[in-house]
């Protein structure tokens, strides 16, 4: 109507006070070609239709009739609020410990040697650590009452982060207030929906929860099986070549533990680094058990193998084992760690570590740096007890010889997990009555993805003397003989 399709004859430059006549408009409508008018009419009708269309949601609603609803309500049987649990469930029969769970532990009133707590370097009862914690308690009080971003950052936190970064020889470190939440927050901070994570089958529960929270695609490879991992990586590469645009935006991660809690084995890191550079994946190394245990100075698996720490993208560990504090840390390049300060859910939304525990961890690091000889000592003791425990009838040792936390599994399972657990519990109870405190490895049976077989977990610490190790080995042997044969 308004375009000059004909030549310009009627281009009227109107003056400031217009006298535009309605008749001319009507004439223009008559002179416009039919298709033009029809098109414009259709568009105007469409506008009116759009303005009056209703809002609706995309999901289909299957509305049940009243009768069907009644039927469903009738059929439903409510489950009991408290499910029936057997009387000898381990959570109902717990051992009571008086005093600290240090080298000599008092279980149910009986003094035993502690072979159950992850106190690898004996820092739990160390007087220097206790003094540092007490001084910090007098200075700061007990808790922080706030997350890191909301008046919960104290100078001890920043000190501890600096010290950990210096100790591990990385650029930066970040502290979490709960060891389980460390890796469970770190994984979803980087890996989102659509990203791919290759994880070992024996990964611990914290890693499993982190993977679940990340909503990524999880590909599991057999425990410590680099050939299986390579097969999975190759399959992924073929997929990537089919769709390069999608491949360019998916991130690939490999999550492994330094020293596996469930099996006591070490992951083959050199081959992993080679695979990382070949298939362009990033490695997340969870060093909860290997921090303060492996390596000449206790720096973990990278020192043990002599690998440059910059090859590992993120190292996560909890301070609840060797450092005998609470909480966990992640360390790596600044570029990587800084991201967690806003994206790590456990960092942003949980109260920060109590300052007395941070001071205790700093003192623990001091001790580790001053006596690097304890790591070799620990390795020696592990080797000793590994050798001593070989050849027990009925029990096999699962774990490497330099792992201070290894498992004793039944050589032949009875067939039902419950019976196995009861058998092992008998062994544990008998050992405890003879002065050796052991524990079974506990799992949330229904929640674990790949439930390991029941086992007794034996922990070696630096504080145990050789005689005590011998005593433990002979006691376990004798008890196993009695119970299993």
């Amino acid at each position, binding site marked *: *109507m*308004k*375009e*000059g399709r004909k030549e310009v004859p*009627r*281009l*009227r*430059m*109107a003056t*400031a*006070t*217009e*006298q*535009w006549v*309605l008749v*001319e*408009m009507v004439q*223009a409508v008559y002179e416009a070609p039919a298709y033009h008018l029809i098109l*414009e009419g259709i*568009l*105007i009708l*469409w*506008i009116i239709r*759009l*303005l009056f*269309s*209703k*809002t*609706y*949601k*995309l999901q289909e609603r299957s509305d049940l009739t009243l009768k069907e609803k009644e039927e469903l309500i009738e059929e439903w049987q409510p489950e009991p609020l408290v499910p029936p649990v057997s009387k000898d469930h381990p959570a109902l029969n717990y051992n009571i410990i008086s005093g600290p769970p240090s080298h000599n532990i008092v279980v149910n009133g009986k003094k035993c040697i502690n072979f159950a707590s992850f106190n690898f370097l004996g820092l739990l009862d160390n007087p220097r650590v206790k003094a540092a914690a007490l001084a910090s308690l007098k200075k700061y009080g007990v808790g922080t009452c706030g997350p890191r971003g909301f008046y919960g950052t104290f100078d001890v936190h920043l000190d501890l982060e600096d010290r950990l970064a210096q100790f591990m020889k990385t650029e930066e470190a970040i502290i979490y207030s709960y060891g389980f939440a460390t890796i469970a927050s770190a994984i*979803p901070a980087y890996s*989102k*929906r*659509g990203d791919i994570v290759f994880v070992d089958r024996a990964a611990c529960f914290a890693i499993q929860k982190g993977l679940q*929270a*990340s*909503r990524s695609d999880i590909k599991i490879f057999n425990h410590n099986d680099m050939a299986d991992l390579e097969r999975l990586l190759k399959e992924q590469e073929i997929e990537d070549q089919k769709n390069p645009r999608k491949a360019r935006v998916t991130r690939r991660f490999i999550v492994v533990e330094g020293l596996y809690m469930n099996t006591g084995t070490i992951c083959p890191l050199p081959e992993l680094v080679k695979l990382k550079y070949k298939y362009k994946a990033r490695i997340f190394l969870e060093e909860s058990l290997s921090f303060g245990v492996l390596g000449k100075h206790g720096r973990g698996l990278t020192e043990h193998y002599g690998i440059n720490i910059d090859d590992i993208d993120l190292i996560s560990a909890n301070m609840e084992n060797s450092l005998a504090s609470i909480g966990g840390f992640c360390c790596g390049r600044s570029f990587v760690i800084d991201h967690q300060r806003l*994206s790590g859910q456990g960092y942003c939304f949980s109260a920060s570590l109590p300052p007395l525990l941070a001071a205790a961890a700093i003192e623990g690091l001091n001790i580790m740096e001053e006596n690097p000889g304890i790591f070799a000592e620990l390795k020696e003791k592990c080797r000793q007890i590994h050798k001593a425990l070989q050849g027990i009838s009925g029990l096999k040792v699962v774990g490497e010889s330099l792992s201070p936390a290894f498992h004793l599994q039944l050589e032949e399972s009875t067939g039902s997990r419950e019976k196995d657990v009861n058998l092992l519990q008998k062994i544990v109870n008998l050992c405890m009555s003879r002065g050796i405190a052991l524990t079974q490895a506990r799992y949330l049976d229904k929640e674990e993805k790949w439930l390991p077989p029941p086992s007794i977990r034996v922990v070696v610490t630096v504080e145990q003397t050789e005689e005590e190790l011998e005593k433990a080995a002979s006691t376990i042997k004798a008890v196993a003989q009695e119970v299993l044969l």
Partner: protein
Amino acid sequence: MNVGVAHSEVNPNTRVMNSRGMWLTYALGVGLLHIVLLSIPFFSVPVAWTLTNIIHNLGMYVFLHAVKGTPFETPDQGKARLLTHWEQLDYGVQFTSSRKFFTISPIILVLQIVPTSFSLYMNVLSPTHLPPGQALLSCFSQYFIHV
């Protein structure tokens, strides 16, 4: 949610087009584009209109229907990574006010309804006696009459 305030919206892309003043800003932006194009001396008015339409439609296509995901990280682990902005609007509810507005705006632009109604008002409904303030506006209306 209003842009620039504290909100608990998981994916702000879903609500940004409902924010206060967003439609007005959009309309003014299109108007500004048109005026800029009109100011270029060698574009005649129909060419300027055509270019406005083309640029507006291209811009709408690229930003609403071609680019996927969000330019920021969302706390839902990337649920909207594969969705265009149009699909993210109002969490997928169809025919909400924002969607209707953005569906109708290119049609209005092509039919030039705004200038038509404006000049209709100026010239037919109040033809002779223009209040002083509107004399300035009527200078622009001469550009819309080119039959």
